[in-house]
């Protein structure tokens, strides 16, 4: 009974965090929300008696993928602002998602 309630609560938490990931437009902030979603999903996987999968999810989906996203955002921002400095100032660079 307790296990069922726990799984149900974690399922709803996963749905809410997942919605937050898709609706966060700015990529740098979205990386952090993705990391939080990965953590909630990892806890749900532990509640579903899948510790191997939870380890992989937290290692890859919560630590490594958001790190890659943050590095990509840093690189793209620098690249687009360098390009903006070169062209005419009436071109607006769009960097927000």
């Amino acid at each position, binding site marked *: *009974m307790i*296990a*069922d309630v726990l*799984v*149900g609560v974690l*399922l*709803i938490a*996963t*749905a809410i965090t*997942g*919605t937050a*990931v*898709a*609706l966060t*437009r700015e*990529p740098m902030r*979205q*990386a952090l929300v*993705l990391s939080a*979603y*990965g953590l909630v*999903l990892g806890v*749900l*996987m532990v509640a*579903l*008696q*899948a*510790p*191997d*999968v939870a380890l*992989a*999810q937290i290692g*890859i*989906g919560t630590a*490594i*993928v958001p790190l*890659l*996203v943050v590095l*990509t*955002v840093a*690189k*793209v921002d620098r*690249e*687009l602002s360098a*390009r903006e400095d070169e062209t005419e100032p009436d071109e607006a*660079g*769009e*960097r*927000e*998602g």
Partner: protein
Amino acid sequence: MSDLFGVLPYAVAAWILLVGCYGIATSRSFIHVVVCLSLVQSSTYLLLLMVGWSRDATAPVFGDVDPGVPVVDPVVQALTLTDIVVGGAVTALLLSLTIQLAKRQGSIDPDRIRSLEEELEE
């Protein structure tokens, strides 16, 4: 309670899939698209694990329980593990492509990038 478990896991997996697709379709940055794609892939992990789950069963590791105790489905967990690793690798590759796109085209807006040729003038 069993009625709830007939609906809630499928509903959550379907909701995350649809929300991710909505995020991809209304996106204005390719990095946002890649993260939403990763979200859509994670809904399949959820569905696979819920299919393998059994009530009153424990994890499929016999280090501390005796053989003979009911365990959840290990085959589905192996599939999900492969899914996570491959999904992470694909996300890394897509992010490298996004960096290349920013360098070559000067923009990562999906609406502004219409062709693979260089020197996009808008």
